[in-house]
């Protein structure tokens, strides 16, 4: 047991009774639908309890207020069988990392119940370096399941505070990279590993505390799965898991078969990689082959020098999320849902980069995949069609050093407007797509960071006009109270979220700095822009695309937009006057 102050400790739970495990199934056959459903509830409850445990004991604001973490249960081959619903991009992503660990590093026979394995390596199935995944096995007389957690850590080192190096040109600049490794062995944390980690990151106390929360969550997951094993026996448990997965696969195939024949294509441009000005093409073609869904990114551009490359695990998550959302939003989500989906992502492309391409801003592309695939599937499913939402994780980081030399980092992700739907407006300022986050309360931000939020408001006129209006983005003005550095990973600054069926695009994002009476517009991707006390940053996020021709919008809806100040520009007023005249 290691004894460093603040280091994670590890103690197997005494709740884990040395229960007897019968291999006999109880009175029902293995794949009896009642037992399967009962075990499904048990698995879901285990994943949810793991999530509660992390949520309430984590330290950093990223996890504690923004809920940027997820928990899951896997079968022994690494396929996800139950997951807590927090962040879509995390969900099936853990499967690829776990399968990589099992295949290339540590086969499941080498796992023992007191072990914890960890990785954050995008080239071993991970996402980006701040997302540290941890796994632990649950055994009866043989391995029965694996429990896993992923948490976004405030800082994992690298060239920029918050590990968002917008000008990184390889992964080595992005932070401390953890190849899959055993960080706890038989209950003993690896002193070497934690020493190395602590020495390479900016706020080790918070990161280590959050890792501790992840470990405690794994232990809880093990206790809960153990209970199911003791109750049902490992054979029944395993058979039920197989049945759950094949059930979801059948349902997903049934949903895919409702798609019309034909190839549906859509494409869109990413502003740039932060180093150059060249736009990057994200192009998708989607069709069904029997009951398989083929999602082809062959015409998508190659990987970039700047850090917006999207590792295959993240690309797959974005595809799975969109397919579930458009085809089967209520399906119990496990890897059976993903089996019928084939993703064609050429190696070396921005949706499947090769090491050591930098990846920290992978959600720029992850969100754009959702936008283009939603557009393509909307062509196939016109009665569920949706215009583009804001389409980016608008990450920004403020960092400063206090009097004692300690780094203080404020990390925030701003969302924007939803795309208008076929029969209704898009939501103003609400999480969409592959993330689902909470903002930081201004009252907490100001208590912990030397900055003042001057305003935080809906961004008028940012929603795309249409029969149904796109949702509004948000505007936030922040004043530095001490010398700070500002970094950002924005996109859709040049290419606005498109509308649909004649709807107009939403407003693109914008970042402006006001310093000494001078207004400077910054690019979407910023690294370490120096702010002096009283300098202000103005952040404006994307509105969603509109749906249908604007002249078809109901007069009442226009009047309300104007009364609420959500639309102030002349075209809407003119249209209102024209309509009034007609009536």
């Amino acid at each position: 047991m290691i004894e460093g102050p603040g280091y994670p400790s590890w103690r197997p739970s005494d709740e884990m009774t040395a229960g007897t495990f019968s291999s006999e199934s109880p009175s029902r056959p293995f794949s009896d639908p009642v037992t399967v459903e009962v075990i499904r509830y048990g698995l879901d409850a285990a994943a949810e309890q793991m999530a509660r445990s992390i949520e309430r004991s984590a330290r950093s604001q990223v996890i504690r207020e923004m809920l940027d973490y997820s928990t899951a249960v896997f079968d022994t081959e690494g396929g996800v069988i139950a997951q807590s619903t927090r962040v879509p991009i995390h969900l099936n992503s853990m499967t690829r990392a776990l399968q990589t660990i099992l295949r290339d590093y540590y086969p499941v026979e080498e796992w023992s119940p007191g072990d914890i394995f960890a990785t954050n390596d995008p080239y071993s199935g991970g996402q980006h370096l701040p997302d540290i995944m941890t796994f632990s096995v649950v055994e009866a007389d043989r391995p029965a399941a694996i429990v896993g957690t992923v948490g976004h850590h405030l800082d994992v080192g690298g060239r920029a505070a918050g590990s968002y190096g917008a000008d990184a040109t390889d992964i080595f600049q992005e932070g401390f990279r953890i190849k899959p490794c055993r960080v706890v062995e038989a209950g003993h944390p690896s002193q070497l590993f934690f020493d190395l980690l602590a020495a390479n990151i900016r706020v080790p106390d918070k990161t280590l505390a959050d890792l501790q929360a992840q470990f405690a969550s794994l232990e809880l997951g093990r206790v809960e799965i153990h209970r199911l094993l003791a109750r049902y026996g490992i054979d029944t448990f395993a058979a039920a898991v197989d049945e759950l997965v094949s059930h979801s696969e059948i349902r997903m195939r049934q949903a895919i078969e409702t798609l019309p024949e034909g190839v549906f294509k859509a494409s869109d441009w990413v502003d740039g990689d932060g180093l150059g000005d060249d736009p990057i093409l994200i192009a998708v073609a989607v069709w069904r082959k029997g009951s398989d869904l083929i999602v082809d990114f062959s015409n998508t551009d190659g990987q970039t020098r700047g850090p917006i490359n999207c590792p295959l695990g993240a690309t797959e998550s974005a595809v799975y999320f969109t397919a579930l959302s458009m085809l089967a939003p209520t399906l119990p989500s496990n890897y059976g849902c993903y089996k019928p989906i084939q993703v064609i992502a050429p190696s070396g492309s921005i949706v499947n980069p090769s090491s050591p391409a930098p990846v920290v801003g992978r959600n720029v592309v992850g969100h754009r995949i959702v936008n283009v695939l939603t557009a393509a599937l909307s062509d196939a499913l016109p009665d569920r069609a949706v215009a583009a939402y804001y389409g980016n994780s608008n990450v920004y980081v403020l960092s400063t050093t206090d009097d004692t030399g300690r780094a203080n980092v404020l990390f925030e992700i701003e969302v924007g407007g939803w795309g208008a739907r076929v029969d209704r407006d898009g939501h103003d300022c609400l999480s969409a797509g592959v993330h689902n986050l909470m903002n930081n309360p201004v009252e907490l931000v100001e208590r912990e960071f030397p900055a003042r939020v001057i305003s935080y408001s809906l961004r008028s006129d940012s929603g795309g006009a249409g029969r149904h209006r796109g949702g509004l983005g948000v505007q936030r003005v922040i004043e530095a109270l001490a010398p700070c550095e500002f970094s950002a990973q924005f996109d859709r600054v040049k290419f606005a979220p498109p509308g649909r069926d004649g709807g107009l695009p939403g407003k693109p994002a914008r970042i402006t700095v006001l310093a000494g009476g001078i207004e400077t517009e910054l690019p979407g991707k910023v690294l370490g822009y120096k702010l002096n006390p009283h300098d202000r940053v103005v952040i404006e996020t994307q509105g969603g695309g509109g749906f249908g021709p604007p002249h078809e919008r109901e007069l009442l809806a226009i009047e309300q937009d104007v009364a609420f100040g959500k639309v102030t520009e002349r075209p809407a007023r003119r249209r209102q006057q024209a309509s009034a005249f007609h009536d």
Partner: protein
Amino acid sequence: MQPPWIVGVDIGGTFTDLVGMNELTGEQIHLKVDTTPAAPSDGFLVALERFCSRARVERDSIRLIVHGTTLVTNAIIERRISPTALVTTKGFKDVLEIGRHWRNNLYDPLLEVPQPIVPRSLRLEVEERLDAQGHVIQHLDLAEVDAVLDTLEQAEVEAVAVAFLHSYANTANEEEFVELLQARFGDRLNVCTSSRLSQEPREYERTATTVLNAALMRLVDDYLSMLETRLGEAGGRAALYITQSSGGAFTPAIARKRPINLVQSGPAAGVTGCLEVGRLLGERSLIAFDMGGTSTDVALIEDGAPRLAMELTVGEIPVRTPSVRIHSIGAGGGSIAWVDEAGALRVGPHSAGSVPGPACYARGGIEPTVTDCHLVLGRLSDKRPLAEFLTLDEQLARQAVRSHLADPLGFSIEEAAQGVIDIVNAAMEGAIRVVLRERGDDPRSFALLAFGGAGPLHAVELASRLSVATVIVPLRPGTLSALGLLSSDLRQDFSLTRVIRASEPNAADSLAEALTDLEHIAREQTAGLGGFDWDLSAHDVRCDVRYVGQAYEVTVPLKAAKGAHRRLQAVVSDFHKLHERAYAFANPDEPCEVVTHRLTLTTQLVSGRLSQTTTVRSPAVQQPSATTSVFYDHRSLECAEWARDELRPDSAISGPAIVHQSDATTFIPPGATAAVVRSGEIRVTGIQPT
């Protein structure tokens, strides 16, 4: 001599329940009438009239009425609230609409979210600003205030909410604004400031709470005035109290100022009822399990006190108010079972509700529900009407189960029905485990107390799944909330946020000072509440403590200690212990901080505790009234049927058995044994963990 009767009236969605108790004789009267949603006081008065005639007394024989109501919750969900304006710090009028960004459904592209309570055109801003420490950065801009007041003159609103940034740290600007507002409007507008409701940071939650409170003031005032008038008629002179979300009662005067505290009034009284039953039986840790037609409410009682939360959610809006933590699970007797396109057996989330209701109600429902399955299995019977008036049709239940479940699955009707019950129990087991896990509790240290119409049918099997050893079924599961009202304490909660790092050199003194200030606040605010003996020395004080940087706090009860330093030490060491218990780890080397200081004052409304001993007076039977056949664990069993009214204290029953009464049915599976305890409750033991 004071009038002998005290009365609890709980207005729920369907029924208005009344329990009356004679303090001299201990006699109790329980009755149910229909709720009258359009004018809830009508049903209240009908119940009261019926009580008077049954007790053969006049209105003036009632000393005290304690009231619980769903009025406020329904008003929020249906938006029957006052047009309200919101005044915020410049730059923050949209906080109410932006919320926290988070969506509660990951996948649904057609997701809807509730509209903000105050439309954007009625959200006004004034120039003023505090910093996070409460220092005034900018004083109120009086010219702007005038402009805002002019706008309010024009706006057709009945209420104004005021929520300035960081007002929890310094109330000066909010108070000054309100003075100006009242100087202009007098009593024409209901006014509510955020700092008077909640002295805690997080602007969205505080603002949302303030807005709702302001918007409800008129409704609650009108309702209470009407009620007070009608109760005063016909010689009525009972004092009226209303139960809050915390389970404590308060006066109508305070209810008018803090209507938001009524959000969970009825369900909280149910938990108080459980507490009272637990007290009678000496059970200090209880899972309160209230299963109804469409949903199931779960709350925890730990060491003789309900688990509280400082926030709850109503209609997706956060409400910051001390409340009994009640978790609602979307499964009940009306939950519909179905087989999906790929052959999986699912239960819910759809419910047949009460219309058309389960197939066996014969009201047009054709889909099989949990209630239909109980009927098929023999736990309910077509010979015993549900809730005294509803005769069940077993053939319709069997038909629904056969055509929708048994045939598609290739099961017998009984196997399919049992499968549905097993799945519902698994769903509830999972939900209860998640509830327990929030604080790291072990179900084995609890007893399960089942009430509501369907609770006692599921309780013993559910207890078995949770490894809970004891199940308690109260004498009258259907009116437990109204009974709970009678045992409510009068209660006032106060809080003060002042962050104190335990490692600071003067931390002990700061803590002492904060507590003195908190007592001062309590003293000041209770000064106007005459007629009660607020024992300030016997108050309950707690501190919310966390590791520096953590999001959530652990509430640490303050123990008596000699001297400020010892007290601080005790808080810190208790914090580490409680944290370890809740989250499976503690780091004693980590710095921690006290964040919010809480003080609760309670005083008894009813002297002495309720006792039910006199209510069981029927002649004893030692033989079951009948036997019936019940399908259990894949086979048919002969099962004894007992009538609850005929059981006397010390009756012992071995499972399999069914105990029926007008408002609930208790199922005792084989192996378990039930005993009727002296005060009338059924206590089931011998429950084997599965």
